[in-house]
């Protein structure tokens, strides 16, 4: 096959966006949608805490994390724009059913439950870290070049979540709330490691990602379960009893386009102003990430 010969000549690295075969482009798109949609939707959810977090300081910290996630989404959507898509195609005019984020990021927060925000952030950021590490040596240079920048911001996210978890679980009431958030969110966090479809196998086969989803899930379980357990939180007791991970998954995982009812609602809200103003394209207020680099 011409495309694979091309890839081998480049030492296993893929070319630029215009040089990809159809199969290669499909795999890059699959990967970028996973990344971008997760970050966008999680950032959108986090903003609901603005002016509602427990203190001014925690409000600023979470808002800042939300802004980081939007910034990361922008980097990944920009790679999709290489293929001719516009921001309107990718976000504002896209069918909510076409989004590929995991359901963890779309679920509404339990009203006023800060433990929900913190547990969600912890489960997500631990997975995000593994996922980014598996992209540092991606065969697609456009992607690999952007990973380091994102990784350095993610460190704060993990520390922030861990610091909060340690303190929330210091008392009985807090521990109970963390436990109940973990019970509710854990199955949806497992959805982070679900494939988008068959093209996800190509993401591995073409070296876009250097760790498979299964292998990352194992590493993630080895990270989060012992940490939560050290805080007195039992996140997935079924797993210790030998239950298959797949059986713990929620009905909708998001990755395959199946979402909870909360998602179309959130998407409608997120894009309402765009529609109300009768827009047909998204205004650009920042320079292209390539120009800013």
């Amino acid at each position, binding site marked *: 096959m011409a495309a694979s010969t091309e890839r081998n000549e480049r030492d296993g690295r893929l070319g630029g966006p215009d040089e990809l075969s159809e199969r290669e482009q499909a795999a890059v798109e699959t990967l970028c949608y996973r990344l971008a949609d997760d970050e966008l939707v999680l950032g959108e959810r986090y903003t609901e805490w603005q002016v509602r977090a427990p*203190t*001014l*300081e*925690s409000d*600023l*910290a979470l808002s*800042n994390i939300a802004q980081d996630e939007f910034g990361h989404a922008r980097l990944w959507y920009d790679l999709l724009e290489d293929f001719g898509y516009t921001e309107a195609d990718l976000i504002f005019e896209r069918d909510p059913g076409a989004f590929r984020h995991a359901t963890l990021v779309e679920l509404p927060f339990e009203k006023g439950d800060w433990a929900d925000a913190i547990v969600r952030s912890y489960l997500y950021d631990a997975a995000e870290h593994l996922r980014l590490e598996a992209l540092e040596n991606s065969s697609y240079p456009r992607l690999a070049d952007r990973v380091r920048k994102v990784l350095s911001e993610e460190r*704060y996210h993990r*520390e*922030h979540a861990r*610091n909060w978890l340690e*303190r929330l679980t210091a008392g009985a009431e807090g521990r109970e709330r963390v436990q109940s958030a973990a019970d509710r969110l854990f199955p949806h966090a497992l959805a982070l490691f679900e494939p988008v479809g068959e093209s996800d196998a190509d993401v591995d086969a073409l070296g876009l990602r250097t760790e498979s989803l299964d292998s990352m899930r194992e590493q993630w379980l080895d990270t989060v379960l012992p940490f939560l357990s050290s805080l007195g939180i039992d996140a997935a007791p079924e797993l210790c009893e030998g239950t298959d991970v797949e059986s713990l998954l929620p009905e909708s995982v998001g990755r395959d386009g199946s979402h909870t009812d909360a998602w179309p609602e959130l998407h409608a809200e997120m894009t309402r102003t765009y529609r109300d103003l009768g827009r047909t394209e998204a205004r650009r207020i920042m320079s292209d990430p390539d120009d800013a680099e």
Partner: protein
Amino acid sequence: MIWEVFRQEQAGEYHTHCGNVHAPDREMALTFAQIQHGRRKPTHSLWVVPQPEVSEVDDEAATFGGTTDKSYRWVMPYNRVDPEFAEEIAESEAEQRDADEQRSEG
């Protein structure tokens, strides 16, 4: 609990007080301070200090610098010195150095 925050822009410079954060302990104070005081301005390092650990003396309790005229403390008058004196001073210093060396040799 309130933690006073000091920001250093570049290595080697002084940490300058820039505000405070509310946090239950030292680690959370550092976590919050990074965002509240380190995200917009160039930052090389932040200190957080528990507010009760800061001691104060103000101008009600003390008369800073005293009350009598001590303008002689300011070296301003030297600005009006005849530059030739500078040579004289340099010569005099050189003489003293020589004398000192001779003494130690002797």
